[in-house]
């Protein structure tokens, strides 16, 4: 265990640094729709979220240096990604008969 080798001040400073980073990114979240990438709003928002998630994972959740766990996280994330690529990217992107489908063009579905 690492209890005896903690540099308290250094670690606390680390926490605050990450906090400031996260707050800044949250602010960016709010001004982004009026500032940049306004055409691809969704993509920009998700990129910011990924950046925030990475900071939380690495510093708040102490993933830095944990080889085995990082490998596991990547494995889980890549499985989720595969689901997205197959279901959204392949199946829905080639939705058969969208014009005649009730769920996409029902009378009250506009």
């Amino acid at each position, binding site marked *: 265990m690492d209890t005896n080798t903690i540099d308290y001040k250094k670690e606390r400073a680390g926490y605050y640094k990450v906090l400031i980073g996260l707050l800044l990114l949250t602010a960016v979240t709010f001004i982004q729709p009026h500032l940049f990438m306004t055409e691809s709003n969704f993509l920009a928002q998700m990129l910011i979220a990924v950046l925030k998630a990475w900071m939380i994972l690495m510093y708040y959740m102490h993933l830095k240096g944990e080889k085995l766990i990082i490998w596991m996280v990547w494995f889980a994330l890549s499985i989720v990604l595969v689901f997205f690529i*197959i*279901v959204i990217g*392949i*199946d829905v992107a*080639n939705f*058969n008969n969208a014009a005649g489908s*009730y*769920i996409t063009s029902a009378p009250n579905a506009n």
Partner: protein
Amino acid sequence: MSKTYFDETHCAIGHPKSTFMQWMLTVDHKRIGLMYAAVMFTFFFVAVFTALLMRFELFAPGQQFIDGPTFNQAFTLHGVIMIFLFIIPGIPAIFGNIVMPLMIGAKDVSFPRLNWATFWLYILGCCVALASLFIGEGVADTGWTFYAPYSLNTDTNVIMALTAAFILGFASILTGLNFLVTIHRLRAPGMTFFKMPLFVWGIYATAWIQLLATPVIGITLILAVMEKYFGIGIFDPSKGGDPVLFQHLFWIYSHPAVYLMILPAFGIMSEIIPTFSRKEIFGYRTIALSSASIAGIGYLVWGHHLYTSGMSDVAKSVFSFLTFFVAIPTGVKFYDWIATMYQGKIVLSTPMIWGLGTIITFAIGGITGITITMIGVDIHLQDTYYSVAHFHYAILGGVVFLMFAGMHYWFPLITGKMYKETHAKAAFYIQFVGFNLLWFPMFIAGWYGMPRRYFDYLPEFQIYHQVSFYGALIFVSGLIYMFWTFYRGWTKGEPSGTNPWNATTLEWHMPSSPPPLENHSKVPYVDFNPYEYHHGEPVVKFNYETMQRID
């Protein structure tokens, strides 16, 4: 000195005096595994007799014993019990619990109390599933797949069945989690991943599927419950939802689930073949890595259940292409087993005969699976008896047969007694004949267009159903005969000694049989491969007091 149950009760809560409470509260992995076995085989027989009831109904066209809606409930009950209560948790919960820690030289699993809690979570799930039989309109009539939108509209207890499946899924996740940490942390010193017995590899790959696929079905079931009570429209087309999405989410779990069933079974096979060939296994690494790659590829092929559901044509082609890949690592395993037997000193004990029988039945199940991988053929055969026969050849003739093989193999380890081999072999032959008679006609009936889940049929299919019926009777009598043999073996069998099969893996190097509390007298240092034979004799020998090698 190892401890005994007399010194320490090893319970999750307190130190109860009564033997009964000591069992109910035990954290000992061997006892938990045995309790799982007792519960699961009880449910197994319930489901077997439900199936037999359906066979009776199908003996002749028209209505005999039960009406259509009851028939629907019968096959749902059969499916739900067999899939969620028996075969998915089956081998990991029983043999994973009992044997896996012994094989890696651990004292217990990583989280013994969690293991205990998981068992009771499983029992809770079973209770909810059972309760749905007696409450309101009775058990669900949707089939075990709960396809939306019908499952959202029927009055039967679908929601309770979904809740039960969710709880059982959670138990499955926690079992997988426990095993993963155990295998990562508690291997005996010196035992690297490539020195683990292959059953442990099977359990390891399985545990990853349990951990990462089960949450998807969990959330799907929750969404279905939300849908039912809050009418969000997630899966109901009249509210804008897409039922195909339900099928996607359902099979994202349920297809990997069939690999979850088969991988530990393959692990059992990989133990039995080298032991009874008295020969080091051929291609150890390829078998280990094929387990891992089946688990990986298994995530990518769920869509072949959706060929006729209205999935887009592009996706169909992709899935058909991907599905073929699963056959490759499976084939690798089969060739490795056969190559292991080549020039071995084959001993035809009961576990080996079960293993050899499975090579035949699973090969039939696997190859018929390849045919329905092709979209064109599948359109013809989807939801016919052909796919029913394929599934049962693969799961009953693969997983359950290997589970029986494992039961015969580890019976002396668990009970310390030996069953009568002549009876056990006779039971195998009866079941093998009954099994083929039961399922093979279904391939033909399905090919000619007999749809599944129908309680009535055209007269021309009668011959197939009747042959199946007689096969079912033979199979069930063989099944009862086998369990009777086990029972006789346990009560009246000869003491078996610690290593009756001349096996090499660590679970056979116990100070006593059955194994004492906290397992090995001392943890051995593992600097050998799991299946080392020389001229048909095990290479590695231990001094059982100190667990040091003396060869």
